[in-house]
């Protein structure tokens, strides 16, 4: 193995795309990951970083009926998570609960606590509001955006409101603004749309952007990061959506995923089909007062914002997750089912 890789690895048996930080587990740094195998029975693995941070331990292994295309851990209950799955022709979405484990040998069945069954087309993602206990969920399919109200104790999810994006726009994903529970950003084929969940109306949009993935900065308000296939990474101020406040080159092939550090604004991860994960330190410092020409004349001392490029992957990387408990740690998942956990501490300077 290359000495350059300081990461801790874990192999899933099958191909996989989705990994999520288990934010509600405040005692351990844990991640949930789900596989995407066409023929086989799929699996959800609950991984925990050992207390010394030297090992990834499988804390639970559960079978899951279909290919997992999206997975999100509930931010307030570590045993609950959502998946979007497909059996090839049809799509489904559900909320699951991990049974109590007590160190059993047998792999118990996941309990399905709610089915989000109002969709007809291809479901893209389920969003949890990232900043704590909130009884609402958003699900996005090709044409519609649903707001669900979820009651875990009654094991029920009901559609609260629904809106269609219009025939000409195919939705592909989105992100929920952690600073505003009423605002969600949805990615469309050639734009990013901002929705107000109270009125279920579009409020704003970024046009002419072929965005693959979006993420809000959790620390700084009004900051959205987008990853576009061929155009790299853009950082936007929601108050001025005409021009991005910063552009990062992205990847040598398509940029698929982008993720903002939960604690350190400007610390970004991106992943792509060039089988690398890039760590960026972008400057989000208030360009609010400066004239917009600054985006043409970048100050010279703003050197390369790329801190590191993790290239020790053998397949495209689709899954990225920062740990919210130890925010200098992140997990990445390459399509060959390999989870790698890395620390970004080596790339920060010590005062």
């Amino acid at each position: 193995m290359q000495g350059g890789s300081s990461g801790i690895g874990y192999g899933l048996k099958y191909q996989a795309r989705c990994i999520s930080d288990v934010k509600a587990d405040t005692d351990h740094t844990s991640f949930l990951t789900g596989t995407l195998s066409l023929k086989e029975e799929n699996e959800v693995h609950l991984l925990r970083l050992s207390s010394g941070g030297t090992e990834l331990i499988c804390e639970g292994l559960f079978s899951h009926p279909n290919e997992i295309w999206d997975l999100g851990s509930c931010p307030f209950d570590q045993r609950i998570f959502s998946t979007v799955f497909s059996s090839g022709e049809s799509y489904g979405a559900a909320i699951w609960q991990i049974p109590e484990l007590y160190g059993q040998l047998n792999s118990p069945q996941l309990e399905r606590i709610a089915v989000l069954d109002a969709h007809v087309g291809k479901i893209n993602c389920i969003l949890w509001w990232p900043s704590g206990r909130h009884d609402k969920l958003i699900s996005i399919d090709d044409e519609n955006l649903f707001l669900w109200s979820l009651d875990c104790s009654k094991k029920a999810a009901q559609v609260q409101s629904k809106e269609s994006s219009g025939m000409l726009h195919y939705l592909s994903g989105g992100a929920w603004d952690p600073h505003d529970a009423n605002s969600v950003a949805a990615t469309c084929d050639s734009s990013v749309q901002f929705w107000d969940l109270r009125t279920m109306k579009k409020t704003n949009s970024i046009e002419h952007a072929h965005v693959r993935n979006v993420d809000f900065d959790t620390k700084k308000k009004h900051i959205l990061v987008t990853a576009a296939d061929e155009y790299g990474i853009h950082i936007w101020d929601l108050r001025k959506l005409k021009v991005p406040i910063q552009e990062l080159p992205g990847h040598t092939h398509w940029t698929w995923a982008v993720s903002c550090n939960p604690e350190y604004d400007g610390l970004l991860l991106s992943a792509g089909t060039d089988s690398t994960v890039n760590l960026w330190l972008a400057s989000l410092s208030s360009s609010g007062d400066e004239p917009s020409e600054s985006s043409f004349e970048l100050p010279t001392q703003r050197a390369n914002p790329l801190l590191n490029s993790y290239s020790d992957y053998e397949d495209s990387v689709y899954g990225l997750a920062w740990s919210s408990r130890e925010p200098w740690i992140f997990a990445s998942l390459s399509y060959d089912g390999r989870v790698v956990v890395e620390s970004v501490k080596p790339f920060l300077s010590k005062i």
Partner: protein
Amino acid sequence: MAMRELVTGGAACAASGSSSSSSNPLGALANALIGTSSKTQERLKEIPTATPTTSDSQFYSETSNHFTALPGSEFDHQLLQPNAQVSEFLGGFRSGNHNGFSDVWNEIQLQSQPSFENFPPPPPPQLQPTLEGPPQRVLSSFLHSFVESSRGGVPFRPTSLPLLGLSEGDKQCIRDRSSIMARHFFADKSEDFINAQVNSLLSSLEIDSDARVKGPLPGRYRELEDYWNESQGMLKPGPQPADGWVAEYSQHRAAHDNPNAWAHSFEQQHGVNGWASEFEQEQSQLASVDQLRGVNISNAMEQTRMLAHTLAQNNDPKFQFSLGAKQWVDEFAVEQEQHGTVDDQWVNEFSKLHVNDWVEEFGQQVGDASLGDTSADSWVNAYDDFLNEQVATKQWSDASRRVYVFSDMNPYVGHPNPLKEGQELFRKGLLSEAVLALEAEVLKNPDNAEGWRLLGIAHAENDDDQQAIAAMMRAQEADPTNLEVLLALGVSHTNELEQAAALKYLYGWLHHHPKYGTLATPELPDSLYYADVSRLFIEASRVSPDDADIHIVLGVLYNLSREYDKAIESFQTALKLRPQDYSLWNKLGATQANSVQSADAILAYQQALDLKPNYVRAWANMGVSYANQGMYEDSIRYYVRALAMNPKSDNAWKYLSISLSSASRNDMLEACNLRNLDVLQKEFPL
């Protein structure tokens, strides 16, 4: 030799891509086995005539003092007791005295046999065995059963396993090690047999065996099938054994109404009997159900017995004359004499392993069993206490990461005035030497706040925040209001990205400051908010704009909130007041680097190094800044320079290896992994 290398995971066994296999079950298992035996063997020398059943209390008190006060801790006996036997066994083995060897064996056998009658009726074997659970556990059980199959040379039957998610590296490791190990286990068997055994193992794990181990699968026989089913049953503990257990416990309880009776019966049942059943099995070559129960109770016991088994096989004359085994034993003996510390590591590893496994399995049995009767309930409660204690111990060990780690072989111990020597060395810029002298000082005077403080500063300048924090916490214990200590703790916690702790100490700085203390509330609040703390400091900076310290703390605070522009401004203000402060130049540089101004950062670091040429932190930071600009060759030179001054910096070695990879200098990675500074300095002069 080969065996040792195998179990210690020597270079020959390492598979490329094995960074993925952070745990190797086979290696860990073997380590655990050898580890315990060697340690107990050492102890055995102090006990000329160790009798297994009585001597265990000595081992017990040595190894697990913290359990003694606990009700239910008697159960611990069963973990340690077999070791005494094993070590005695091994002792006989090592001395090469075959008479003594067999005497000991017979003795154990005799002692063990009477206790057979205590066995409860065997549970019915489970006919449809399944291997399920998290991959690691399944894999480890499965490998156990493979090793198990070496008893009596029973062919190993392939089975279908759940998905284990093994990486290529894992697979290669298992393939290599199982092939070699099998040759040791079956030294008296034909090559075909060995190949078949290994093949079955590998095919179950879906590992492609190479041509070397390809061979026909052994035919299936009815009795083997039964054996297999039985041995599978043991991997899946059912409620029956636990029930039987509880029943027997109640019985004993009724018979002898005295608390020791339980301990006694438990010990008999699970300590000696496990061992005895092992022996019975050895003799009859049949898997006894009681032995299977033993496995349920504790993996540790299982492992201990496997060691005994392996050694028992050595009794076979063929194995005795096997060159490999002899070499292994010799090397083992030499190793034993030369490296006491290695044994300690093994023992540690083992104790970690067996306690956790055991507790886990036990908790599971408690969960499985339907324990209705009240005496059993109290017994369960005792176990809950024990489990809680385990958790507490674990948490304590987490906290112990902050315990200061002293160097071995400190030449300054015994120095008449190590503090003065340490201060002198620190002034000369010999940080690593100063650390040693100051360690000698705080060993001599553990309450010397100044000694701890300077030690903390030396570590921080040596780029080791963990040790700096550990030392500074001792300094703060001795002198809770020392402002320099509080600031240093704030800085180091900021570097370790521990915001809450950093905020606490920075607030403490203000709170204890003679001039600004009045700004802070008289009581230290339980929870601090960043905005409140920074507001207080801004206020203080208005009160005395010429106090450099205030600007420094503000700069650190802005680093915490990642308002780097303001942090840079604060440090620059402080530098105007204190231009000769090298650590301040470094703080400025690091802040600039973290706000993506690496070119400016390098200028600031250069200032720091002009003032203090041996400032390891600034050298390392230089490396980070060059690496962040993609100038990996340059960064390598700075890391190597930092390491030349502080070769103990694990961080710097890690950074160096990352830069070497990024610079495509994989040719130098080996030197980096071996920590060969001479080679690296020659290759990357500055």
